[in-house]
């Protein structure tokens, strides 16, 4: 039999699933003792070039509260044309179209290699994708210009039949009519007045005119779609028009007095965007894309006042309960996010500013709807430009790497229940037999809505073993989980992807070694980290750390403790939100990089090699490449830097030095090419101010405190009071053996 590592790899490749345990403890009690819960990371739309979708409807179990999809784990009686559901043991007969099946003529969904299978189904008329740009005009001229260019460029990347809309905002909000010839028309709203969805729809003319006696009623969706045409138009029809419109876009003309921030009505702009979509295209794939260059400063959803002398809230303010607008704004955006999620619309936030932009308050918009958050310093950076371009990247089939309106349903076999999910989704509040009372993450349901998905979107699923200790699972019994994801493909097809996995049950008392060896350390690290982040979002920081420390004594946790996901020190609230946002949706590999950055070393002494993320790795004759997911740092050691300054790489005889310098650049480029969002790229050297990015990540084994005590000359001392791994470990050991834990 293959090693567990191979097994894990194989499973991940086929199903996009990584489990914390690959043998499951067979009783609730034992599962609890294992600390790390039975859980998995699941990437619903994992790219599978080798998986052709089938063009028919899945066969469902006929039991009303089961409805599981026929899968390779089901027992099939080919003669009687009957199959037994492996979740509820209901016996079902095959539909007439399956009349011809036999052992040698099996449909794809019964074959073991199709434990993940995708169906293309017909569900109503296809609806085009919708992209609604919500653009902040309170930007510096240069930024606005760059943004305009990016937006104009993006028009060429959209599918030609996609509907596109434009809302601009500053002190006022303008929603632009795109269909008109001649005069450019827009509807204007003031940024201070909260409007109900009904009012917005009325004001945009999405209501039927009031007939005698009765108030205006919302139009039937079809009529509304026609009426809304003035705001949402097919790209191919308004390409030129919109390009001109974007070209003529001016900075917000209202004067900004000295000592004030520009008035930015982000809150109302978003509520109008969401109101427009919910009034016209409910339950249709749509992206609201917010481009903002600063915090909302007026109206509902305002994050900071317009007085420059009052700075935007910091963690300090929040801890001291000094952030006046925080609660109100968060509540406001949460309400908006929930409305968008209900209608299946997702919200992206592209925030580019040197200061904070209110991501902390607005993050739920993207977190609950599966939208992207991209944070940068300026729209005029390649970070933004390329990341934005990458939103519209296409897969090997030439189709967009985005899917909409997904619902994920989880079915479990009887010994198992689903506790919850952590990822960019909202609960659909569907109760069912497989829903656990014990919530972890977003729980209490067996269905979740994921308004927008990419192939990388990864959810963490937590299960509860409900089998009682005194009711042992028969030997060789297997626990099974089925994930059914229905979604709108970017080519507007409705599709259903079904993944069915199974793991063996094991008795923890007799087979503890087996269970131990089935432990997937990487997956567990990420799964636990997600739990930590989920708690950190909702609870006070130190408590979470203490919880984590109690839960786990593992090596990687040292870095997790230091990571921006749990530590808010040195990070603004916006940055924390940003980091956490990405952490709860990226796949395992990326998540691991986020927890423990990767450090590569390039030197004349051998091929590039990964080295310890430790200050001792910082040597003068090395080039280091650190990938923290969000940053990509190339660090030239002291000697290398001097050589480079002296220009040796220009000389023919030092061609090898030139190659050495080039190697990390090429590697970095490769990472830059594939990652979303594009990381911040930093090229620095010993003593450079930007070197802090590296120094803050490495394990401070040498600091100014112990430099001489350590007594070695290798490595670079870090000026920090943080404890090093060594100290951490010593402390842990002490704790681990003390009974008072």
């Amino acid at each position, binding site marked *: 039999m293959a090693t567990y590592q191979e097994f894990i790899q194989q499973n991940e490749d086929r199903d996009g699933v990584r489990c914390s345990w690959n043998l499951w403890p067979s009783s609730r009690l034992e599962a609890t003792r294992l600390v790390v819960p039975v859980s998995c990371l699941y990437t619903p739309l994992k790219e599978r070039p080798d998986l052709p979708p089938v063009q028919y409807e899945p066969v469902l179990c006929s039991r009303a509260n089961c409805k599981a999809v026929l899968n390779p784990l089901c027992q099939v009686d080919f003669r009687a044309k009957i199959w037994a559901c492996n979740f509820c043991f209901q016996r079902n007969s095959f539909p007439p179209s399956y009349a011809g099946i036999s052992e040698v003529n099996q449909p794809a969904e019964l074959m073991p290699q199709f434990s993940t299978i995708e169906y293309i189904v017909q569900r109503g008329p296809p609806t085009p994708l919708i992209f609604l740009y919500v653009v902040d005009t309170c930007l510096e001229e240069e930024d606005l210009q760059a943004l305009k260019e990016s937006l104009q460029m993006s028009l060429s990347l959209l599918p030609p039949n996609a509907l596109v809309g434009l809302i601009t905002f500053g002190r*006022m909000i*303008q929603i632009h009519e795109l269909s008109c010839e*001649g*005069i*450019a*028309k*827009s*509807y*204007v*709203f*003031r940024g201070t*007045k909260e*409007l109900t969805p009904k009012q917005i729809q*009325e*004001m*945009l*003319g999405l209501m039927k005119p009031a007939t005698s006696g009765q108030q205006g009623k919302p139009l039937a969706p079809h009529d509304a779609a026609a009426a809304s045409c003035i705001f949402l138009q097919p790209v191919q029809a308004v390409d030129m028009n919109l390009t001109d419109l974007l070209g*003529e876009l001016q900075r917000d*003309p*209202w*004067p900004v007095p000295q000592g004030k921030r520009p008035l930015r009505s982000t809150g109302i702009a978003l509520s109008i965007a969401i109101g427009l979509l919910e009034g016209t295209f409910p339950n249709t794939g749509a992206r609201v894309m917010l481009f903002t260059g600063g915090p909302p400063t007026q109206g509902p959803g305002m994050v900071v006042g317009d007085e420059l002398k009052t700075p935007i809230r910091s963690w300090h303010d929040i801890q001291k309960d000094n952030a006046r607008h925080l609660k109100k704004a968060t509540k406001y955006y949460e309400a908006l996010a929930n409305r968008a999620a209900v209608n299946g619309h997702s919200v992206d936030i592209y925030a580019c500013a040197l200061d904070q932009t209110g991501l902390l308050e607005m993050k739920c918009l993207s977190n609950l709807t599966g939208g992207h958050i991209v944070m940068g310093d300026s729209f005029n950076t390649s970070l933004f430009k390329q990341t934005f371009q990458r939103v519209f990247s296409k897969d090997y089939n030439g189709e967009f790497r985005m899917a909409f309106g997904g619902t994920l349903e989880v079915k479990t076999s009887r010994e198992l229940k689903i506790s919850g999910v952590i990822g960019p989704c909202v609960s659909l509040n569907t109760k069912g037999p497989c829903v656990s009372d014990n919530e972890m993450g977003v729980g209490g349901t067996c269905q979740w809505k994921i308004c927008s998905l990419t192939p990388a979107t990864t959810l963490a699923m937590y299960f509860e073993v409900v089998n009682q200790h005194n009711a042992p699972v028969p030997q060789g019994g297997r626990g099974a989980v089925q994930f059914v994801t229905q979604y709108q493909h970017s080519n507007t097809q409705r599709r259903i992807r079904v993944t069915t996995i199974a793991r063996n049950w094991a008795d923890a008392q007799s087979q503890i070694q087996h269970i131990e060896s089935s432990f997937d350390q990487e997956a567990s690290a990420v799964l636990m980290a997600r739990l930590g982040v989920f708690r950190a979002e909702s609870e006070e920081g130190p408590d979470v750390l203490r919880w984590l420390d109690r839960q786990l004594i593992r090596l990687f946790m040292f870095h997790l403790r230091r990571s921006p996901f749990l530590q808010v020190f040195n990070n603004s609230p916006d940055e924390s939100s940003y980091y956490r946002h990405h952490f709860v949706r990226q796949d395992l590999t990326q998540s691991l990089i986020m927890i423990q950055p990767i450090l590569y070393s390039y030197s004349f002494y051998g091929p590039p090699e990964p080295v310890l993320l430790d200050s001792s790795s910082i040597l003068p004759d090395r080039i280091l490449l650190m990938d923290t997911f969000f940053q990509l740092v190339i660090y030239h050691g002291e000697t290398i830097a001097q050589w480079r300054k002296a220009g040796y790489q220009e000389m023919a005889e030092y061609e090898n030095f030139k190659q050495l310098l080039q190697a990390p650049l090429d590697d970095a480029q490769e990472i830059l090419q594939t990652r979303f969002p594009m990381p911040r790229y930093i090229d620095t050297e010993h003593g450079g101010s930007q070197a802090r990015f590296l120094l803050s990540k490495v394990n401070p084994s040498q600091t100014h405190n112990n430099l001489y005590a350590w007594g070695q000359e290798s490595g670079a001392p870090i000026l920090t009071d943080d404890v090093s791994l060594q100290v951490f470990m010593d402390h842990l050991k002490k704790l681990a053996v003390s009974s008072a834990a």
Partner: protein
Amino acid sequence: MRGPPTSGAPPVSGAQSYSQFGQGETQNGPPPMGAPPQRPPVSQTYTPGAVNLSGPQPPFSQQFGAPPVSMQQMTNQMASMQVGSTAPSPAGPGYGKYLCFCELICLLYIFSLPGAFGQVRGPQPGYTGPYPGQPNYGAPPAAPAPAPPATKRLDPDSVPSPIQVIEDDKANKGSEPFTTGVRGQAPPLVTTKFQVKDQGNASPRYIRCTAYNMPCNSDMAKQSQVPLAAVIKPLAPLPPDETPPYLVDHGESGPIRCNRCKAYMCPYMQFIEGGRRFQCGFCSCVTEVPPHYFQHLDHTGKRVDCYDRPELSMGSYEFMATVDYCKNNKIPQPPAFIFLIDVSYNAVKNGMVGIVCQELKTLLDYLPRENPDVESNIRVGFVTYNKVLHFYNVKASLAQPQMMVVSDVADMFVPLLDGFLVNVSESRVVIESLLDQIPEMFADTRETETVFGPVIQAGLEALKAADCAGKLFVFHSSLPIAEAPGKLKNREDKKLVGTDKEKSLFQPQVSFYNTLAKECVVQGCCVDLFLFPNQYVDVATLGVVPTSTGGSIYKYTYFQASSDQERFLNDLRRDVQKPMGFDAVMRVRTSTGIRATDFFGSFYMSNTTDVELAGLDCDKTVTVEFRHDDKLSEETGALMQCAVLYTSCSGQRRLRIHNMAVNCCSQLADLYRNCETDTVINFFAKYAYRSVLSSPIKNVRDSLVNQCAQILACYRKNCASPSSAGQLILPECMKLLPVYLNCVLKSDVLQPGADISLDDRAYLRQLVSTMDVSESHVFFYPRLLPLQKLDVESISVPVAVRDSEERLSRGGVYLLENGLNIFLWVGVNAQQELLQNIFGTPAFGQIDPNMTSLPALDNPFSKRLREIIESVRAQRSRYMKLMVVKQEDKLELIFKHFLVEDKSNNGGASYVDFLCHMHKEIRQLLS
């Protein structure tokens, strides 16, 4: 104004009363002025079936639905009035012989009638309405003499004739310039053409007073009941041969003023102590002369530079205002004009939108400016609306205008800052493109609902944002029923007419507009409203903001591009181009003893003295009433100074000063000798028209009659030489008071016919409140010009005839104008040649009654006639649409409404009847 479409066909009773009149007339002696001997009853032409009365039949039609009055009754009625043997010959100028007494004695013997007649039927059908308490017209107890055979009637020619008075005044005063230097001198009548030389008092074009010799004390004033008022038109245009007010700059410290009462330097300031101080003519306070203003006095005590300085020698002049006179102590921005155009279904369909947009393209070149060679500083902005508002960005740098829709009408705001108000020449291309596109964009609109309050709010907010004063031109079509602030209900309820609740119809139905008007005034936002209604739009409410901000209302009921375009465009052109001041405050200061107590016009007052006018154009008049608070001296007379602080169209802050001095008298006779009836009527009309807001109309009418009777009774008692009680004696200056008062009483506001809409009445009510004396004169007593004997060589206009049907010749053609309409009345027997000359057709039957302009024919008569029409139009502030009225055509009833000496079909008394009634009132007061 009453236009042909609103009125529909006349009520049945009208036709009947006409017929009665005609019959009566034939019985009563020779017709005057060579009119045809007999008028066939025309009532037959109006079959009741043709009468298009949508509403209920007016009550009086029932009353008179009875068979025609018998000849005998009629005769008796008329005979009850008899001109005494001393009456002058009917040939007009006859009563000139009484001029030595400056009074007219008109003797009316009133005989008692057989009671039954008087009870059952008053002398005047419908007269029982207005004076219900006195059904018996004849006052039996006073009848001194036994009844002679009742064969004669009161000859209309024997009662004072307005035409005669006008012509006499022209002859006596029209030839020489009127110099204002003499205190207490009454100016020529408004109908007389004359030149004014400013020698220290304001020209009568700026100020006209009811009395140029005021009583010294309040007892006299109370006794006489003559109103003491001045009708002030601060920015009145002057004829080309008169100099406009000089502009005086007193330097950085601002105009020199009295320390106490703050009166501005004027000819009434007395310099003393060798010129080092001056004593205020108003409050007698002594003020230091600032060093830079010092000048030596000559031997008469006058400053040596007296004639070099307008403020020391002229009645009217302007001061440059300093920054202290500016809002927030900031030099004002140049004003802005904002055009707000209704683009709802009705407005598009009747062609208004297209016409306005087309016209604005050229009109914008003629924005007001002080120097005709320089471009106007005024910026312009454009808004269209139905139930949402569309603002336009017309910034010069744009290739195309941009439209911004604001649908949040509940909470109005201006969606853009830059590019809304622009300079015409810079943004011309974009503006023209916009004006071309507006009619296209809304050509297929199906939106019928409109808002109104938010429209004004939008303009106001735009001016606030731009921090300037300005004027809104609102082109509006319908009752604003869309959900928005200032939303209105249709409350037109004819049943309330004639009841005590009638006044509520003149009051605004919501208070929203009053509040809005206040805000507008604070910002200096003047609102002009052009209405194009097809039905009730509630002018009383929509007009609140215009009338409180110094704006105007124009109303084009059933607007049709083909027939009303010319009138509308001329009004619009004039309205846009006319000189005006912005963000104005007017203050009237008077010498100790009298005080300005009441003001009438289009303005807002937040305290009792300052008249705030968001805009003040050259046509606007403010009438001020004065009352005694102390005694005046005959020596010094009474002084008044009207100061208007305003921003000129170029953005300059200025003060216009008008000074007026009148005499004071201790003898009532002096008062009556120096009155101006036209001004008194102007005051009375404004007073009465305002009173209808608070009192039942009947009370308003009664008190008017009563005051008038008191004025005349006081004269009779104190000034006239003793004579028989049966004689009606009128002061020379006021001999037209009864006829004019009657015209006021029977005007549509105070005595509505069944065919006049509430909107029309509200419109007229507001219109009269800003009229000057010449406008009110012609409005109440229209000018009727006979054309058949027109001298095509002469440049003068023919002598008018009195407004009575008796004066119309069946063979004649007449022109009637009242400042709002022009009628061309064509008699059925008009000569073919005359018709050929005017209409190009010899046949009466072929004249098209729908024509709105006369064909341009190449004959001297046609040319001269059209010239006359043009010159008449040029005299009025509003363009008058021409209507051709053929005798015996149904339109004639409208025309007859303006023959104000006749009894009207809504119950208005004829001149003669009213005079009799007046006489009776006077006699009652005297006994």
